[in-house]
């Protein structure tokens, strides 16, 4: 029998990496994985730490916080407290994946399957990434941002730039549109916008006109009662557009942080799915290679060791328990969907009538494209998996002296458990819901934010620090009101801008 092995041994070469990429691409095509073109980059451990601390971006503007991150990553790595991730992958077109030079050949193959095909196809397919990120232009935008920030530093001083960036970073999770979707502009809107810009410029030019007495001023025409008319969810956008005292370059910095926050927002919403999907595919693709006789037993043993480590899920009472492992949950759910399609039980047929017996590749693809963590769990977490993982939910109510076991993996608990787990991955639940409520345009120009409490959860006292950053950007007093679900203001924090 002729051997079809791609390699034996664990030393990698560029040729072998290329061959593995082609082999995996061939198998991936069988499963109809749709990916951006791949760009695989070999980096050293130090460069990996570099990439780590600049949130994985290949280029980025300079900021002390990245230095801090680098120092702490480096030190933990040196002390052996953490291993580095085997890969970092960037949602760009072509899709850039970093491979560490220290990895063995089977690890490189695993990483290629995981990142260059798993994550890559997720970036290309998932609706959040399609809607919110522009993979074609992100590298260009990062370059622009880096150069713009550098330019500002030269003109206005490093400290001034740093102050604005600090404040923006404090608000970056509130620099994203959560509800609104970007709608393509119609020609009509485009025209309206253009006219508006023109009028604005005109108004700026004709400053003198304002000094003329208005002939038929109508004194009873009071200024608009409230501003903004509707609460605004995107704090940074609101600040960029409406903060009274910011200079144009400062607004542009706000915009850069906001744009980047928006770019990363889908990744924060699809942790389980993204990792689950990538893990599922490296498992499936490499197993297929093994079945075809293209990798040997030694390769599979090393691969399975790593794979098992990645998807390890210690129980809640285990010393190393640190919450639910997104790789484990995601992988288990993806495998579970495959199982339900291929070998449904009666229970599965009752819970997932559409999945049972369907084509698993198409079903998984549909799930990948159209869900985020929260909705994915709400839709696909099966009773069988809840039993397998022995999930249970604990209710911590500060009015009670004891914790309550709210639901466990049993008939009466499945739905509650599933909803609770889904909520756990809902950013709107995890993070305080804060929106722009009022601007006192005629008085002291103060800005009022509102925190809509959910389940009576208050803001942390340390939020006062974040509020000071809002005040720095806004330039006038800022307050935040915590509002109970019934609509009464529970607490108010205030901050004054520093001058």
């Amino acid at each position, binding site marked *: 029998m002729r051997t079809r092995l791609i390699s034996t041994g664990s030393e990698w070469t560029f040729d072998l990496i290329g061959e593995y990429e082609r082999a995996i691409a061939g198998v991936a095509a069988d499963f109809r994985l749709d990916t951006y073109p791949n760009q695989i980059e070999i*980096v050293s451990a130090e460069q990996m730490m570099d990439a780590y601390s600049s949130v994985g971006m290949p280029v980025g503007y300079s900021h002390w916080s990245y230095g801090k991150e680098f120092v702490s990553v480096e030190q933990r790595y040196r002390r052996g407290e953490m291993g580095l991730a085997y890969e970092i992958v960037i949602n760009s077109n072509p899709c850039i994946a970093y491979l560490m030079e220290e990895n063995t050949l089977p690890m490189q193959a695993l990483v290629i399957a995981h990142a260059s095909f798993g994550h890559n196809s997720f970036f290309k397919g998932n609706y959040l990434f399609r809607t919110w990120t522009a993979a074609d232009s992100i590298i260009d935008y990062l370059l622009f941002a880096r150069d713009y920030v550098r330019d500002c530093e030269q003109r206005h001083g490093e400290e001034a730039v740093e102050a604005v960036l600090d404040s923006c970073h404090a608000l970056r999770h509130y620099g994203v549109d959560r509800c609104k979707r970007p709608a393509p502009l119609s020609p009509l809107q485009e025209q309206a916008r253009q006219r508006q810009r023109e009028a604005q410029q005109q108004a700026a030019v004709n400053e003198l006109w304002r000094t003329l007495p208005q002939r038929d001023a109508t004194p009873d025409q009071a200024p608009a009662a409230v501003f903004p008319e509707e609460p605004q969810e995107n704090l940074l956008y609101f600040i960029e557009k409406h903060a009274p005292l910011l200079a144009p370059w400062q607004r542009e910095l706000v915009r850069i942080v906001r744009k980047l926050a928006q770019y990363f927002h889908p990744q924060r919403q699809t942790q389980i799915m993204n990792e689950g999907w990538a893990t599922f595919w490296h498992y499936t693709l490499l197993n297929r290679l093994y079945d075809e006789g293209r990798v040997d037993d030694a390769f599979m043993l090393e691969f399975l060791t790593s794979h098992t480590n990645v998807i390890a899920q210690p129980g809640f009472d285990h010393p190393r328990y640190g919450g639910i492992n997104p790789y484990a949950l995601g992988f288990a759910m993806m495998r579970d969907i495959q199982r339900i399609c291929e070998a449904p039980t009666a229970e599965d047929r009752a819970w997932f009538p559409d999945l049972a017996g369907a084509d698993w590749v198409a079903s998984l693809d549909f799930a990948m494209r159209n869900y985020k963590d929260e909705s994915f769990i709400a839709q696909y977490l099966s009773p069988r998996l809840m039993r397998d993982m022995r999930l249970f939910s604990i209710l911590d109510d500060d009015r009670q002296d004891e914790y*309550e076991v709210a639901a466990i993996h049993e008939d009466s608990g499945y739905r509650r458990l599933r909803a609770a787990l889904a909520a756990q991955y809902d950013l709107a639940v995890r993070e305080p819901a804060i929106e722009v409520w009022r601007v006192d345009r005629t008085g002291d120009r103060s800005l009022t934010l509102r925190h809509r409490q959910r389940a009576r959860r208050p*803001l*942390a006292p340390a939020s006062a620090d974040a509020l000071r950053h809002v005040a720095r950007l806004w330039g006038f007093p800022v307050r935040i009101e915590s509002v109970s679900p019934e609509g009464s203001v529970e607490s108010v924090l205030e901050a004054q801008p520093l001058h």
Partner: protein
Amino acid sequence: MIVDRRLNGRHRNAVNRARFVRRYKDQLRRAVAEAVGRRSITDLDRGERVDIQRKDIVEPYFHHGPGGEREAVHPGNKEFSAGDRLPKPQGGAGGGGSQASQDGEGEDDFVFVLSREEFLEIFFEDLALPDLVKKRLATIPSTRSVRAGYTQTGVPTNVNIIRSLKSAAARRRALQAPRRGELARAEESFCALEAAGSPPEAVREAEREVERLRRRLQRVPFLDTIDLRYNNRVQRPQPTTQAVMFCLLDVSGSMDESRKDIAKRFFALLYLFLSRAYDRIELVFIRHHTQAAEVTEDEFFSARDTGGTIVSSALSLMDQIIRERYPGNDWNLYGAQASDGDNWLDDSPRCAGLLRESLLPRLQYFAYVQVAALDEQGLWREYAKLAAERPHLAMRKIASAADIYPVFRALFARQPTCAPA
């Protein structure tokens, strides 16, 4: 597409690290000051671990505080059933559901290790060193080129003639060897043919063959470019010699902690300067009031005596130590003296005499600092007279750390490595 990125940009984050250092300069400065006080003089020349409190470094953001209702799902249920009630752990997290602390305020300090360069940078900061000097102190000493055999490439001035001719001879021998055999045979057959009286054509043919072989042999060049050998030189770190640094400190009652601290910085700086120039430096600590004694570094800076001051006691002890332990020209001797200027009146001329007669001729450099006490006393006047005639005696009154450096200005102008031994 596969790209090898290992070669470019190793320190992409260096600028971010520098920003981070700048931002926490105050904490770092404090840590460096503490370290300088804690460390030995010989030990300043390395990095330092700095702990920065987490709360100073955390980047704030809006998040939930404790309270309200929260529900969390965990894996690995063993015996719980719905409706069970469990006691809440008292006093903070722990127990069953280890919930990550939401407020991000851990107790651990953020540990940061200053590199040697960063440490020295901050140490030098309030010493007001010129940048050039800082750079020289922070860099590793220069190299010297030394012979290291021969190479086949080089510049014409480095050609080694003997080696080149040797290899030319070897090449000629090697290239000519087979032809020489042929030539010998051809000559033999020519002679044989001639002797046998063969037909003239055959003889001429043989003669032509001999000619041809001779010409071929001549065509092997006498000297070819591949024969050339050049003297090879490589850069080696400059071999430096040994030095002794004498630290003389007045420990009479008037020297308080702040004066001692300035003195310590003065000694430390001299040590750093010298450590650039010499591989090995021995430190001799001599403290004195009315009597001088050689002590360890710890005692040198910690102990404090009272009483009067006789400076010459220290100088003569120094002289004695030099005679006993560092005779001859094997050692570069440096002296550094810190005092508040008090001295018994009739002792100052003795000091100047000792310096002039026995010490200064043997010393590379002697630096005297008068800590505080801005009035000029006997010792100062005597030294000033001496300094006018001996340029390697430097003296300075020092009120703050920033005044220390000028003392060394002359030392730098003179480049200690080139100084006569």
